[in-house]
């Protein structure tokens, strides 16, 4: 009986202790693109923003390419986690919801991150937090570069197509062969593009092969 009571008490404590602490651990960019873990103030969500308790942060080449501009700041954009608190005027999202998004301003390599609601989406049920943290920038590359800018549509040559909103992709035949050797975003872009029945070739793979041959 006594242990049950103790457990109930502990659960109550953890549920009520939802407010973020004042300080958090976060990676910080140093001179020369180095990283070190520091104690920093937990960022506060402004109007139209949410604060998330970070579960995972995705690493993208832009993170270290932009290191000079983020000296003394927290790097990283891609993030997944649970909503810890919501800023003023945020009505569509609730504390505890599992989400992913872009934390461009606050940075994502940290225990807490701020995401504007216009850069926020629910986490796919089928994905782990780690997988979900790999989505935002890769998805943006795929969506904007191939769909919006490249105007890829299913089953049509790229020249004669109108942009289409819906994606109804069949399975890829051999995504591995098409996957480029470079960083992660191309993997997702190629997967989506061949999923959309467009014949693709990886220029990066070809370019690298031609260099070595």
């Amino acid at each position: 009986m006594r242990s049950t009571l103790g457990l109930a008490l502990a659960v109550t404590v953890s549920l009520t202790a939802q407010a973020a602490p004042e300080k958090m651990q976060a990676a910080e960019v140093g001179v020369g693109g180095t990283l070190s873990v520091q104690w920093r103030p937990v960022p506060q969500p402004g109007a139209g923003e949410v604060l998330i308790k970070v579960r995972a942060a995705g690493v993208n080449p832009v993170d270290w390419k932009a290191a000079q501009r983020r000296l003394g700041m927290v790097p990283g954009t891609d993030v997944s986690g649970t909503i810890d608190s919501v800023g003023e005027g945020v009505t569509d999202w609730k504390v505890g919801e599992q989400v992913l998004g872009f934390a461009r301003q606050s940075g994502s390599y940290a225990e807490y991150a701020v995401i504007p609601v216009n850069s926020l989406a629910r986490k796919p049920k089928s994905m782990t937090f780690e997988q979900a943290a790999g989505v935002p920038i890769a998805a943006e590359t795929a969506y904007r570069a191939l769909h919006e800018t490249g105007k890829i549509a299913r089953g049509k040559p790229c020249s004669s197509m109108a942009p289409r909103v819906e994606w109804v992709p069949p399975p890829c035949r051999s995504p591995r062969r098409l996957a480029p050797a470079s960083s992660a975003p191309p993997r997702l872009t190629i997967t989506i593009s061949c999923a959309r029945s467009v014949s693709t070739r990886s220029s990066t793979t070809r370019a690298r092969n031609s260099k070595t041959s």
Partner: protein
Amino acid sequence: VKNVDLVLNTADAGTTARSIAVVRSGGTLVSIVGPPDAAACAAAKIRCARPDRETGASNADMLARVVELADAGKFKVFVDGTFSLADAAKAWDKSREGHTRGKLIITVSEGPTIKHQ
């Protein structure tokens, strides 16, 4: 490679220049690593473009559609390596090498744990 309808260049600026030669007349070159040379694109009669966050769908709309696709099983995310926050620098080292086969992820928290007094 030549006569390609669409090239998406994610490699580097040098590849952007070389890519112009493989796109067919009337085709498209999209680059996310520096703007293609406009004069060379015009000479080759190809459309050169960069993705534009300002004119496209909002990030929230774009992500919502991508999440729908993920839940429908239309794509998966391959995680190539996970790192602790303390090892974030190692993740950058691996990213700089440029030979990953999936995403590099920093696992910041394992999730809620029941706190004891």
